[in-house]
């Protein structure tokens, strides 16, 4: 009797396990985007495991570093209050994975503007990501804006960036003009960063 061929699907049963498995994956020379996305999606969000990183700010969304992946990636938790959103931004040639841990986030994809950037940026698509879903983007796919469009519920998301980066470009939707910005962490490893 033939054995059915099965493709292995890893499942992370806790946030700690997810981090460990990510370290293993990124220790290799080659990393599969699909594998990372599937792994992140497999983790069933358990607030008890990440509450210590989920520090909200009244005025804007926060970035809270969870793990720095031995320099290979940054894993962080973003906290979005009601109505909080990001500007349109790129990802500085890195891979970006975004998993919803709580609530919903709307992702709007944009085309790269023309060199001169003299017109309204073109929206490619938009979608609302649900709890535990994991999205992926990189510069060749396009630019995006992420926002919590809920006026009643905060949202929390888990992001993995590889390689890590701390600057990116933000774009003016009306003109396509770009502006380089430096990103900072609101907290690192559960401790509030004082700037």
């Amino acid at each position, binding site marked *: 009797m033939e054995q059915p061929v099965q493709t292995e699907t890893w499942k992370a049963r806790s946030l700690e396990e997810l981090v460990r498995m990510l370290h293993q994956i990124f220790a290799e020379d080659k990393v599969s985007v699909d594998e990372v996305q599937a792994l992140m999606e497999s983790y069933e969000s358990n607030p008890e495991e990440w509450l210590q990183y989920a520090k909200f700010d*009244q*005025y804007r969304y926060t970035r809270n570093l969870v793990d720095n992946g031995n320099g290979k990636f940054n894993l962080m938790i973003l906290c979005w209050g*009601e109505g909080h*959103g990001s500007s349109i931004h790129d990802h500085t040639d890195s891979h970006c994975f975004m998993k919803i841990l709580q609530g919903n986030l709307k992702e709007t994809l944009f085309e790269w503007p023309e060199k001169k950037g003299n017109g309204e940026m073109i929206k490619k698509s938009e979608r609302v990501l649900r709890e535990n879903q994991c999205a992926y983007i990189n510069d060749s796919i396009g630019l995006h804006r992420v926002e919590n*469009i809920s*006026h*009643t519920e905060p949202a929390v998301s888990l992001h993995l960036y590889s390689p890590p980066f701390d600057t990116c470009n933000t774009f*003016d939707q009306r003109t396509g003009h770009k*502006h380089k910005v430096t990103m900072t962490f609101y907290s690192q490893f559960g401790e509030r960063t004082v700037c």
Partner: protein
Amino acid sequence: LPAGLSQWFPALEVLDVSGTGLTEMGTELLSLPCLHTLLAKNNRLGGPGSLPKGLGQAPLARSLRVLNLSGNRFSELPPALLQLRGLRSLSLGGNRLHGIPPDIQELQSLEFLYLGGNFITAIPPELAKLPSLRYLVLCDNKIQSIPPQLAQLHSLRSLSLHNNLLTYLPREILNLVHLDELSLRGNPLVVRFVRDLTYNPPSLQELAGRTVKTRNVPYAPSDLPESLVRYLSLASNCPNPKCGGVYFDSCVRQIKFVDFCGKYRLPLMHYLCSPECSSPFSSASQSSTSQSESDSEDEASVAAHRMQKVLLG
């Protein structure tokens, strides 16, 4: 609310009844002397009697600091709410509000006001009389213009205006020195340089008033009827630095673009005393945005660095 709540839990400080299908919050609230946080999101509040009568006389009126009524069915801000003098944080996001009552100024301790996701069309200037307001959210509404008085909110740190119907902002917005965040995306903001030369000729009263002011004609309150004394005090200075003129009601509206952070162009509404008073480069055509940049640079450069983060893009 369950009857006897205040008897079982007289020391209650935080009450969360979100997502319970409540249609009204009754008199039990009035007997909770220590309550400082009341969360009642995602219910069916909004009809008459949603809030109990006598709220203003209850201990709650002084003790309540945080009230969250987002995700309900309020079509107007319940007047009873305005009696909560100690309120610091109010959220009515995701309701059915069509406006904001001028009496909102009664909530003098308010620091945080969330009104996103309603059907608000206009902002009363009285909103500016809230001296402690730091965070104002008006996104996802139907607002067409911002009253210039809003610049009096000197404590304002964050202003959320995205997804409205704004075509321009009042230039006074530059006076908000502590504003760190301003979101404007999803508004039909004017991109091209626009000159609106609709100009109603000034009245005789206006012309006389202008002369009195610009020539420094001396007058005492006993010389004029009180109404004219008041009228003279309302003179606005023409923002054109090369003109020393004033205007009262008759002015030219002109949209100027002011660069913030060197990258974003915000159309700001300027009021000038006459069409001749337009920018020195009065032959500006539609495409010469650089001209609008240079003559607004001086006034903008001082204020521009204060606006640290413009979430326009």
